[in-house]
């Protein structure tokens, strides 16, 4: 018997219903379903979502297993309600060959907590000079569809154009980390009022916006699709909005931290707030929220970037960039988008599951909660309030900007193809 009956959950935030899981599949959705032979989960007041999908995760394996491994990263993902994550290519070695992406894919299968879909590098060694074997990575067991040099920008316009054209052959997408390199030399934080005062090197908004503008025009010219990673400025939103209105096939993501935090936090010089792209201004945060609400920004992606303690417990300039996010993403989205009335839960399901699965072509994920579908599901208690304590994180790294901060909501259960990976808020 492997039947599970989730009783009385609000499916996608709608009416309370029962959901029966049989094996790896949702067997039935309705009211008053029989619990015969099933383990029952009383879920009154909870929200049932399709398993979350993260299009932008750094799992660090191979190469930086001291920060995170596929196993610890997928455990963190399951804790956060995710059933699939896309693993970025900036590992050591770089995921720029069929061999490396297959290794990551296999490690994901072995972990059993969450499906891992590797992202392939666009260029060899992320060096921006020579296209990686995009076709071979697609044809490999990993079936790569998303390509990104994330961490670095594909800044050569010709390379970017070629990559966009080339992946059309197999329906791939290029995910761009938009950062004009010359404009961001020595950049430490958002360029503006706070950087001027703190004397930290500025990362100007235009360095992101100018690359996005170029790339949407390139995508239009070659008739390909482009995905913009971690949009962080109000100006980027305007460019994507314009591109979409023009019919350009562009999608975009925003991270939870760019929906909540501002560059004012950098006044503490605490490197936990050091991230790329940097935390921007209140005005940017509000523009990003609005854009996620109106669909200009398609998805939330965590940019989960684990770093060991010693890489953050130092002076700002020496610190690594990035923050962990898998385990707090849904809570931040609840606080910034749901509790502000900008999104309802069905729209959260869209931004955090349906749409990312669609952009990344994740098989079996981002599916409706209905009979016959794979039982990739997440159960959330939205009434929960708690203070973030990184000591309890499943991620190997603890570089969260939310330590000590109260955030709403808690993932109580996560199911990967009918198997519980999280039960009562704890990893199974």
């Amino acid at each position, binding site marked *: 018997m492997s039947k599970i009956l989730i009783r009385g959950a609000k499916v996608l935030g709608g009416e309370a219903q029962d959901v029966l899981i049989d094996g790896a599949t949702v067997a039935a959705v309705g009211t008053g379903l029989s619990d015969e032979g099933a383990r029952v989960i009383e879920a009154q007041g909870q929200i049932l979502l399709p398993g979350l999908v993260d299009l932008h995760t750094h799992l660090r394996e191979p190469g930086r297993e001291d920060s995170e491994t596929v196993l610890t990263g997928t455990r963190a993902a399951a804790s956060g309600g995710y059933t699939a994550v896309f693993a970025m290519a900036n590992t050591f070695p770089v995921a720029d060959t069929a061999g490396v992406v297959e290794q990551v894919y296999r490690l994901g299968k072995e972990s059993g907590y969450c499906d891992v879909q590797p992202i392939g590098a666009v260029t060899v060694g992320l060096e921006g000079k020579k296209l990686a074997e995009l076709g071979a990575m697609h044809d490999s067991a990993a079936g790569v569809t998303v390509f990104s040099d994330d961490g670095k920008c594909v800044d050569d316009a010709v390379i970017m154009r070629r990559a966009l054209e080339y992946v059309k052959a197999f329906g791939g997408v290029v995910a761009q980390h938009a950062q004009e390199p010359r404009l961001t030399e020595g950049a430490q934080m958002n360029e503006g009022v706070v950087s001027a005062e703190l*004397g930290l090197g500025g990362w100007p908004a235009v360095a992101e916006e100018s690359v996005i503008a170029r790339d949407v025009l390139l995508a239009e010219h070659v008739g390909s699709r482009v995905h913009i990673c971690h949009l962080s400025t109000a100006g980027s939103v305007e460019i994507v909005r314009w591109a979409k209105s023009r019919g350009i096939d562009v999608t975009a993501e925003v991270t939870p931290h760019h929906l909540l935090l501002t560059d004012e936090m950098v006044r503490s010089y605490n490197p936990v707030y050091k991230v790329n792209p940097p935390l921007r201004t209140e005005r940017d945060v509000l523009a990003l929220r609005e854009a996620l609400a109106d669909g200009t920004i398609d998805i939330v992606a965590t940019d989960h970037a684990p770093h060991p303690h010693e890489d953050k417990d130092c002076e700002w*300039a020496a610190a690594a960039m990035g923050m962990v996010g898998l385990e707090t993403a849904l809570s931040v989205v609840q606080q910034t988008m749901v509790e502000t009335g900008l999104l309802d839960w069905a729209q959260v399901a869209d931004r955090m599951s349906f749409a990312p699965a669609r952009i990344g072509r994740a098989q079996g994920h981002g599916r409706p909660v209905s009979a016959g579908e794979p039982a990739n599901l997440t159960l959330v208690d939205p009434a929960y309030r708690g203070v973030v304590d990184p000591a309890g994180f499943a991620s190997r790294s603890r570089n969260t900007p939310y330590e000590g901060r109260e955030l709403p909501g808690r993932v109580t259960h996560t199911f990967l193809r009918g198997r519980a990976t999280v039960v009562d808020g704890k990893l199974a």
Partner: protein
Amino acid sequence: MMRHLISAADLTRDEAVRILDTAEEMARVADRPIKKLPALRGRTVCNLFFEDSTRTRISFEAAEKRLSADVINFAAKGSSVSKGESLKDTAQTLEAMGVDAVVIRHGASGAPYRLATSGWIDAPVINAGDGTHQHPTQALLDAFTMRRRLVGRDAGIGQDLAGRRITIVGDVLHSRVARSNVDLLHTLGAEVTLVAPPTLVPVGVETWPCEVSYDLDSTLAKSDAIMMLRVQRERMNAAFFPTEREYSRRYGLDGDRMAKMPGHAIVMHPGPMVRGMEITAEVADSDRCTVIEQVANGVSIRMAVLYLLLGGNESDAPNPRTEEK
């Protein structure tokens, strides 16, 4: 008095005036045959320099020794220090050695703030210049120099710089001296104008408590003091301005420009000066130029800061004012 001195912006008007007044007392020590006070006898001060600056280090060292402190000089540059662990490791070593105060110079903005707030060390931290952020004792010695010249040595006691007009010229973008001075001079009631080519003014400057001008000539006649900043030659390669000559023509201070300043107005420079480009020899060597006084005043200011941060206790630290009598 505050526990650390990280930023000029942290000082209140009264705290700043108190430091300036104390520095006047300290200056008298320099006029004596034996230039020493017992105030910090038995206390250990470490000069922790991650970035070369012989001038600033010597100035602090002189101040520490005149207050009878034991001095440890730690130059991290060139040692086995690597990456970010260095600051924390070094701090903990100093803590273990029982250091009573740390004077830190660091190439990274915010490093002294991290040192003071991260729990790595308990001792008071004095910022001797961090990246492009702050250099508060420089601003204090500049203010001290201005007060002496513009208000008067004795008349200045208890006074601030209310209504004085100060113009700061040059590479504001990369200058911790400019940032510190804008903060402190504003606190002391002065009106500050920054003058630089637009490329050398930081984005976000509009929130600073000062005016910004791109035209040096228009500010000359209404300046009580003109502070020239150092322009590093490598800025030229990064296209901050077209040529050294053009910079000099537009933003250099020469005799003609100095002649347009009010009779009482002074010319300041944090040193070392690049003669010819930012300041001509004629100006640098004139009696309006306070560069040498600034150096001497630096020791008095640093004595005052160390004394107030560390001495504090009136019973074991004799009040220099009474001792003088």
